[in-house]
């Protein structure tokens, strides 16, 4: 009896967690190669293409190199905190994979908790401790400034990040990620009624992860490498791991909150959760595939941003967070509240759709004169 209970409530969820953990680690390792290769393609150069077929073995070579490199602990550093720095952010970002449903509920979620979203937010926001601890403990001026900047930035964007979710909660009425997804399958993607919230969420999530255009903590032209200037070998790798894992968590969150997660349905028609569950194993695989596709799209946008946008100045960054994002997020809550109160929720979906249409029209109105640039391939084979 107890064995069966243990099996059901502890071992089986843990197996699922480990599965998610390994898959995500594989994605993180692969992202390293994908990012460099994509940046190369966007900037008309090649990127890593030497190790193995199209440089694919780079995925294996990098971790081996991290393991074998010398681990330098600066003599003036604060030793205990220096060790804790890279380890602290790792644990909560990995724990989050217990809570995120990667597919239709009973199968692809390790621990379904009814305050999942709040727990995810709480766990991911602890990432700032590791960064400020590592930056301070290195006892290096660049590290300290990078750590402080990073802390100020992450803390500032935590507020609009949280506030933008409130609008979604007002519509869906639950903190359970599965219920939020089901609500979207039965109505439409939250992207439409909460388009402002989506915009705020997306910008803050870039800032939270210290990604370009908000990568001030690592501004290499002024701060060498920011908070991880003094870190080498595996400890540096842990910082990178935590960063990429947090990127994946945020991509998952934006997919779940705004893009309907693993479902592909409008108004309860299409691939809803019930539909997928009734299809059995095949439905699970389809759900997982839909989810991963949406998630990887956001990972791609992260890289796309990095290749496209120049870096903000620090005061611009703080201004954007405190003077624009927070009032905008509060305004979004008020507007959502008014629409829900007067019972015109449906209208929000149409307004959102119209806004998206207008943006699309604006982008595609004038065809940009095409400049025929040589592709990386042509450049490489020209001579």
């Amino acid at each position, binding site marked *: 009896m107890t064995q069966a209970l243990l099996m059901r*409530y*502890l071992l089986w*969820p*843990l197996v699922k*967690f*480990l599965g998610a*953990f390994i898959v995500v680690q594989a994605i993180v390792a692969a992202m390293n190669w994908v990012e460099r290769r994509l940046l190369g393609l966007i900037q008309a150069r090649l990127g890593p293409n030497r190790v193995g077929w199209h440089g694919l073995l780079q995925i294996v070579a990098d971790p081996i190199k991290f*393991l*074998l*490199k*010398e*681990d*330098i*602990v*600066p*003599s*003036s550093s604060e030793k205990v905190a220096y060790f804790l720095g*890279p*380890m602290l952010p*790792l*644990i909560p970002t*990995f*724990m989050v994979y217990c*809570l995120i449903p990667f597919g239709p509920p009973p199968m692809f979620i390790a*621990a379904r*908790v009814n305050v999942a979203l*709040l*727990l995810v937010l709480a766990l991911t926001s602890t990432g700032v401790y590791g960064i400020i601890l590592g930056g301070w403990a290195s*006892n*290096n*001026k660049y590290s*300290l*400034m990078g750590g*402080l900047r990073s802390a*100020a930035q992450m*803390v*500032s964007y*935590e*507020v609009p990040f*949280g*506030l933008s979710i*409130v*609008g979604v*909660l007002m519509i869906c*009425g639950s*903190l359970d990620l599965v219920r939020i997804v089901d609500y979207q399958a039965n109505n439409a993607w939250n992207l439409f009624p909460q388009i402002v919230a989506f915009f705020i969420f997306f910008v803050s999530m870039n800032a939270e992860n210290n990604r370009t255009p908000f990568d001030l903590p690592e501004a290499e032209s002024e701060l*060498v490498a920011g908070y991880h200037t003094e870190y080498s*070998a*595996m400890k540096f790798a842990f910082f990178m791991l935590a960063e990429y894992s947090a990127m994946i968590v945020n991509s998952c969150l934006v997919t779940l909150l705004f893009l309907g997660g693993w479902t592909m349905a409008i108004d309860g028609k299409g691939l809803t959760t019930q539909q997928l569950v009734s299809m059995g194993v095949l439905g699970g695989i389809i759900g997982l595939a839909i989810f991963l596709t949406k998630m990887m799209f956001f990972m791609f946008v992260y890289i796309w941003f990095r290749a496209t946008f120049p870096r903000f100045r*620090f*005061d611009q960054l*703080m*201004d954007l967070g*405190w003077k624009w994002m*927070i009032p905008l997020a509060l305004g979004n*809550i*008020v507007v959502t*509240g008014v629409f*829900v*109160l007067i019972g015109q929720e449906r209208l929000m979906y149409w307004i959102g759709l119209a806004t998206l249409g207008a943006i699309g029209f604006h982008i595609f109105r004038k065809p940009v004169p095409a400049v025929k640039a040589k592709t990386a391939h042509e450049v490489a084979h020209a001579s």
Partner: protein
Amino acid sequence: MANYSVLLVAALIVLSVPVLTLFIITPLIRASRANKVKLEPYECGVPASSLAFDHRFSVRYFLIAVLFIVFDVETVFLFPWAIRFKQLGLFGAVEMAVFLAILLIGYFYAWKRKVLSWV
């Protein structure tokens, strides 16, 4: 409850990853030829003029942290309200409007006192 215990055990499993690699695997296989110069704090190749602990940093970082506490508590307060928003109806909306108004007064006070502007 069972679901939270999964989280706890997962935390222990995850903790073992950095501990194993940092304290058991890498010490066995990594290179280690440290010398005095290598262990100096990095400062673009020249001997460090001073350490980070010798310096003070801008008080604005503290102000931002204090403001963050206020707004983050507000966000957490908004979460349960938002979930029950449809059931609470007009009463809940007015209650929250009063709370937000008080908060916004503080926000604009901070703005006027130039806490939010960095330069």
